[in-house]
């Protein structure tokens, strides 16, 4: 799961101290241990304030799961506990994210060995060749946001229905149904689409009503369809969560003040659900930037994402340095896009908290 730098959470979320020592990364810096857990920008404890009481000059705090943290006997002990809690995740990220990234960075400045692979060197040649993958970059930069927006268009009404309109008695079941597809591998579900879109699927039905030889599979449209299908739950859930928290009294107030339903939606509901929308769009876009499977299966190896170009460079051309250069560039591009998008998102959504489900 990509890490999304989040802004400092609003003060009300974390007790009365008024300033959450939040780091943009979800890991608390070890040694800053007087706030175990508070550094995580995940969901706040439903926003309520907990009155602290004096206790050796310290306050009780509420961590992100709503547990009350008791002030520890000594800071050293707390630091140790914090370190122990953070260590597994930190080690994981170090071994599987930071070190590989450093290796990739080193490779990116190397050369392809004569038989393929990596050969030590220091050259910018790989970066100079990036334009040869411009088409794949372009494809990715267009299809990823378009896919995310299509996802949003489909997901919003569903999330709205689930959160606002659905009978509360069935809500849990309906929400579960959204998640049920995740029980099956995306690979299997995407294969199913290959049959639905293939000649014996929809085109076969179309031929019965006179449309012969319609081709749906291995087109950009098929890839988009696969993307929307595959990532829909990831879009529905954050929007659902932000709509569920919506205070109905605001809608009643809006109606009482004479707003028509449409104005209420655009003036109250939509703005209040923007954090969820932004989270969903960011989540889906980021995942799509690295997408490989869906274009491979539903695009026939022709509709190329940068992820496919990467696989090709490592598994066919065996040009590890060029592959590394592309991967490093992709990471840089994603980080930049994300920073810009988040900045815009927070300007739009004010200082509201963005949740990651």
């Amino acid at each position, binding site marked *: 799961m990509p890490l999304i730098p989040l802004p400092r959470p609003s003060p009300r979320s974390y007790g009365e101290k008024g300033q959450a020592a939040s780091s943009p990364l979800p890991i608390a810096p070890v040694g800053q241990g007087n706030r175990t857990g508070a550094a995580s920008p995940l969901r706040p404890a439903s926003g309520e304030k907990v009155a602290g009481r004096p206790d050796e000059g310290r306050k009780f705090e509420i961590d992100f799961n709503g547990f009350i943290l008791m002030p520890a006997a000594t800071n050293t002990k707390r630091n140790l506990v914090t370190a122990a809690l953070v260590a597994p995740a930190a080690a994981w990220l170090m071994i599987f994210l930071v070190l590989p990234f450093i290796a990739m960075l080193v490779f990116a400045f190397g050369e*392809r060995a*004569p*038989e*393929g*692979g990596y050969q030590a060197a220091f050259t910018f040649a790989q970066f100079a060749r990036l334009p*040869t*993958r411009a*088409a*794949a970059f372009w494809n990715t930069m267009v299809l990823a946001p378009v896919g995310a927006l299509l996802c949003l268009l489909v997901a919003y009404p569903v999330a709205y229905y689930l959160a606002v309109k659905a009978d509360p008695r069935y809500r849990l079941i309906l929400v579960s149904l959204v998640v049920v597809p995740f029980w099956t591998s995306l690979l299997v579900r995407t294969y199913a689409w290959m049959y639905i879109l*293939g*000649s*014996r699927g929809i085109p076969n039905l179309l031929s019965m009503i006179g449309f012969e030889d319609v*081709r749906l*599979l*291995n087109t950009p449209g098929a890839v988009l369809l696969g993307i929307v299908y595959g990532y829909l739950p990831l879009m529905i859930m954050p929007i659902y969560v932000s709509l569920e928290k919506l205070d109905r009294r605001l809608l009643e107030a809006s109606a009482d003040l004479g707003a028509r339903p449409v104005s209420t939606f655009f003036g109250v509901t939509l703005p209040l659900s923007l954090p969820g929308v932004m989270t969903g769009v960011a989540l889906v876009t980021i995942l799509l930037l690295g997408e490989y499977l869906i274009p491979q299966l539903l695009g*026939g*190896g*022709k509709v*190329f994402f940068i992820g*496919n*170009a990467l696989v*090709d*460079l*490592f*598994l*066919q*051309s*065996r*040009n590890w340095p060029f592959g590394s250069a592309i991967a490093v560039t992709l990471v840089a591009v994603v980080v930049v896009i994300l920073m810009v998008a988040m900045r815009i998102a927070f300007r739009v959504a004010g200082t509201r908290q963005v949740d990651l489900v």
Partner: protein
Amino acid sequence: MTKWYRENAPITAEQLADELMRLKRGSVTRRHFLGVTGLGLATAVLARQPGLFNSPAFAGDRGTQMSIATWPNNHDPATFEAFQAATGVAVEVNVFGSNEEMLAKLQAGGTGWDLFVPTNYTISTYVKLGLIDELDLSKLPNYDASTETARFTNEGVVDGKTYAVPKNWGTTGIALNSTKIKTPVTSWKDFFEVAMTEADGRAMVHDYQLTTIGNALVSLGYSFNSTKPDELAKAEELLIKVKPHLYAINSDYQPSMRATDAWMTMCWTNDGAQLNRDMPEIQFVLGKDGGEIWSDFYAIPKSAANKAAGYALLNYLMAPENAVKEHIANGAPTTDSRVMKLLPADVTGNKIVYPDEASLTPLEFGAAVTLTDPGRAELMARFKSA
């Protein structure tokens, strides 16, 4: 509370099913599974009964699992089942679409393959890179070099040492669905023209530099194996021009041809024979302007974890009575005269499998240089990402 009749059983049916699913998902180890279900103990006890689950003739340190890397639709699944029944070793089959992909995996390491199927032109590179072992022919009593056709087997021998033994030979031709395509296609030049016209959106090329670039070169009148930059540039121009008209770039084209999603494809002999056998309207033709003739080999990676099982399977496959079943199912022509004698007349008389010698004349064996040539590798990658 009454005592349920299965209370003393080591594991309930539900628990067993749960554990089995966990094992299949890979979230528990085989060792854990056997331990927790009691099957390990049961197997250990049963295994002591000679002749019940094991055959003394095959006793050895082969374990129960091995892995082979091969090509799509390249084997008769019954072969591996029979091998497992005979030896107790289950064979995991990994399928690849190009020799480059196999090489990439072996170079990166950790493949877990105990046997794999490289094509003739790659073997010298594998030897040079130290990725395969010289075969210990004493462990392959079923292999007989004297009954092999030298033309198809010589590339398995490097510096007088046998590194690979032949599986079968074949060609790379054109498969087309004659109910959909009426224009006669007899050459690679025709192939690319029809791909842009009558078969617009319905033609497939391999996800494989050797054949896709090679056949594009042939259609332009150049050598299948050319690495000359100016000729490759022409081939790239052609491929980029064709790309928007293609159905897919994929070496596993049988599903698409069978579903009639695709109407024409670059096709290996064995796939051509299989497709034509099940769907007579799919024809297989060789390019009269050239193309590839090849032979596939079996080799054992240096990194193989279970070489004993690799040798056992290889020796099993080299036995003519087993090989003949493979050849009938797979549809590729044999290099072994012992197998040839056992093949039924409808196979040996099949012009797709055993074409006239004259039609083979323009074909070329792949050259080792194409495997590692950066120009061809990059061209293929550019073509795909264009």
